[in-house]
């Protein structure tokens, strides 16, 4: 991959270049307190732009898989049905997307586009999406207490699947091109060739940043094994289930969760729209069938299900990507503190107990 060096002050000029190419450039901005959210960069807000700030909890997956999205409209006239799909095809650039979220979008690519059926709504949004990744280097801003991308091998610096990657080297930024579209931007004069010293600095910073992660959950891969083999005790799932208040939050904020439900809305006397809305396997109604049969009634069955779907070898192989990217959002939004890092820890502890019990 080609890399270039730019001045610190030129970072926003990349956004300008993309805007010049017709992209709506969307970046994380600070809100009240520690809140941050994605917003289009405009003349009005560009002074508020910051490169290092907490990753927004409302995940950028919604720019390819919206929280609520119209699939089609259906009009009735003279007994006929006019069924029309509605697509969104405008160009968008995510400027400052973190490495975990890049991995999340890659996972969605594998899921929505990688198998027998292609999701055209996803595809049209994805094809028009440009990703400018920012490497997480500042503890407290980029890296928070819940981050565990080291364990999922998705950060703090993404290895691929971005168009451009920015890394803060102090006075300068290293810019890495991940795609031809990204590389094409290097024709601008602000991109300078780098030196071996730049490369060494990058490695040194990344080595230092590794130590800043509080949640290292080194037991993550063992958890994958335990979950895949069905070796996690029912008791552990019950404990996890008892702390789940079934809000669905972990799924909604997850960059790699894909489930949705579909709903028809009356929009006029002879017109309806069909929308799809994020759905969550934590919810009791998720598997309930018309007529009342629900194969997954107990809350711990549903919790078990979510972690199995994310961590089972079978699905990792099927998608060639794991449905957990180490962003830590599920932990931050969970009422009962049963986000992924804690679940890994609970499974580890339970396995120790059962080991000693066997002795």
């Amino acid at each position: 991959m080609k890399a270039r060096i730019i001045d610190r002050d030129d970072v926003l000029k990349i956004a300008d270049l993309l805007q010049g190419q017709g992209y709506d450039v969307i970046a994380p901005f600070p809100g009240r307190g520690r809140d941050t959210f994605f917003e289009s960069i405009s003349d009005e807000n560009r002074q508020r732009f910051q490169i290092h700030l907490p990753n927004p909890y409302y995940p950028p997956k919604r720019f390819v898989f919206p929280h609520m999205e119209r699939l089609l409209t259906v009009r009735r006239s003279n007994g006929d049905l006019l069924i029309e799909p509605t697509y969104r095809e405008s160009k968008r650039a995510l400027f400052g997307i973190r490495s975990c979220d890049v991995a999340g979008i890659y996972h969605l690519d594998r899921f929505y586009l990688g198998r027998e059926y292609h999701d055209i709504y996803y595809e049209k949004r994805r094809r028009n999406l440009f990703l400018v990744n920012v490497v997480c280097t500042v503890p407290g801003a980029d890296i928070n207490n819940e981050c565990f991308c080291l364990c999922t091998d998705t950060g703090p610096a993404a290895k691929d699947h971005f168009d451009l990657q920015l890394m803060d080297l102090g006075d300068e930024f290293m810019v890495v091109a991940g795609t031809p579209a990204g590389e094409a931007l290097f024709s601008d004069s602000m991109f300078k060739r780098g030196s071996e010293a730049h490369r060494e600095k990058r490695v040194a910073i990344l080595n230092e940043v590794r130590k800043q992660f509080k949640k290292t959950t080194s037991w993550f891969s063992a958890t994958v094994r335990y979950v895949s083999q069905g070796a996690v005790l029912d008791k552990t799932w019950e404990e996890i289930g008892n702390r789940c208040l079934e809000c669905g939050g972990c799924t909604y904020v997850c960059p790699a969760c894909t489930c949705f439900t579909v709903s028809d809305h009356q929009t006029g006397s002879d017109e309806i729209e069909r929308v799809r809305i994020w759905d969550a396997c934590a919810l009791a109604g998720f598997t309930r069938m018309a007529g009342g049969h629900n194969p997954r009634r107990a809350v711990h069955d549903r919790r078990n299900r979510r972690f199995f779907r994310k961590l089972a070898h079978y699905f990792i192989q099927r998608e060639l990507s794991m449905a957990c990217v180490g962003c830590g959002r599920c932990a931050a939004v969970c009422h009962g503190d049963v986000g992924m890092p804690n679940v890994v820890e609970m499974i580890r502890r339970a396995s120790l107990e059962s080991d000693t019990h066997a002795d």
Partner: protein
Amino acid sequence: MAHRLTTCTFCGVGCGLYLETSGNRVVGVSPSMSHPANEGRICVRGWHVHEVIDAPDRLKKPLLRKNGRLEEVTWDEAFGFIADRLKVIRDTHGPESIAFLNSPRCSNEETYLLQKLARAVMKTNNVDHGAGVYSNYALNVLLKMFGTPGTTNSIQGLDRSDVIIVSGVDLGRQLPTIGGRVIRAKLKGAKLIVMASRRHRVAESADLFLLHKPGTVSMLFGAMAKVIVDHGLVNLPFIRSRCSSYEAFLASVRSRDLLATAEACGVPADQIEAAALEYARAASAAILYTTGIEAREHDSVEAMVNLCLLCGQIGKDGGGIFSLTEHNNLQGVCDMGMLPERLPGYGMVEDDGARRAIEEMWDTSIPPRRGMSASWVLSHRGQGAVRAVWLCRYDPASTAFISEAGESLRQCDLVAVQAVFLTETCKYAHVVLPTAVFGEERVTFTSTERRIQIADKVIDPPAGIEPAWQQLVRVARAMGAEWKYDSAADVMDEIGAAVPFYSGANYENLSHDYGRQWPCTREHPMGTQFLFAPGHPSQSFTFIPIEKPARPVVTNDEYPLTLIFGHSLYYWHQNVLIKHSETLKREYRMLLLDYPDGFVEINTSDAKRYNIRDGEKIRLRTTSGSCVTAARVTPEVMSGTVYVPYFVGQVLRQLRGDQEKGAQLLPVRVEKEAA
């Protein structure tokens, strides 16, 4: 894409969340990580609030009943009709023939103006909110014992509690954000004591779970007081300096017998003792309950507050009494004086001083006698005295609590409804005014932790639709009043003058941080995290001796089970919102879909004893009536009890028969009904 911080309006927690808009459409929602009430968490309802805002089937034009049918008319015609009809009714039958009722979901501004319209313009104190039937009692107890009606402490403060007692309420379902806070506090080391007559999710995390017979809360807390007195753990310095009626209370406690009480409650005495000792020895301990009725006997709040005073668990961070409100603005609606006997700020209508202060402010007279309560108005039109009813976002016809509400409304000469959807109540309406919804207006709500906060406007309402408070201004003007409010902020300025503990709560101040917790005064504009802190004007508290605590229902061989009338477990009062979200409808109506003809819940072991299978038809028989329904067999309810969700209105009427109205517990027997 734009984001704006606002306040969730589903329940009393008042979570901070961001609404994402695209054009004039709300397309997404996410929690605020920094809002002190929720800190990044919201419940399933909050996560789907954008679907509710987006509901396409809402009303967009005013409706007027013509030839028996509601027809779309112009706004002028609708307001003209209302003013004419109100004048005729007032002139013919007097102002007492008109009543104004609202829902505890209404904003502070519209509530304030509604009661002002009633009192200042129409000259009647017939104002009340829909939850008054069961919540006003808790309010009055707190006023009597603390002098302040509300949760004393902050939700965030639970992080600093050493002991948390949760009585009755199923937090996981009713107020999940508080439920989560309690679970996390427990994980961080707080002792969690749960007392309830049915199992629930939060109980699974409890250190001590006291599963007690329904109707014994007061006895249970009384027994704990007895343990504390016997162990010499009473906080005497606190009591001596700040409390009255202690001697009388002490005498009533001394007469208790722990073992006998334990048996009556169905709880082992050592569990009661353990709970009492934990509570008394804690540096700070909180007690949580809800204002919902949920089979709460009359003296249970007194018993809980007595215990709190006995140990001085008040006036400090992490302690206090959490009188949790399920409706998002129950606290605010009461603060605004939406009560037949109380003015804004809780002054009594019949207290000349309190009334005069408001009269001077409004520059008009207020009738000096208390008005009629909502249940009085709706059960038989106040013995026929009521001719006109104004209903602001209130849908009494589909809440089973007052089963005669529909019939009462049918007999009125004017039923005016402000509503978003064509509710059941609109069937009886002469005129329906569609209003703006959450997200379309900038107004304030007061959460269960006394947090006055702004719910922001993020999109425009459909053409012609105004916020409910503006419609009230139009009615007042049509009735000849010279009201002038340019914005909801102007209304809040007036509220600040009428309600002393809101005097610092202007919109400028509220738009910083995450709103302010009252008292928020000119002197203390930053608000108050917990009440009665040392240093603040000292306050005196009162014990209320409970001579004869409520006792459990006496069952016998013929009627061996206790029937509990629940109310809020399945969120019936939010149905109008929930049914507009595919996901929420699915989640909250699931049990109704599984048991389409309604159901009652029976414990698994009882079901075995009476040979009843899940979903089977059964007959419930009380001394005064009987009914057929389906059984939902579940280990969640306590053995020996049968739980009736309130929305099965039919069941309720058949079983209560001529029993005392409002009876929450009845002895019952269960019989198999032939299929």
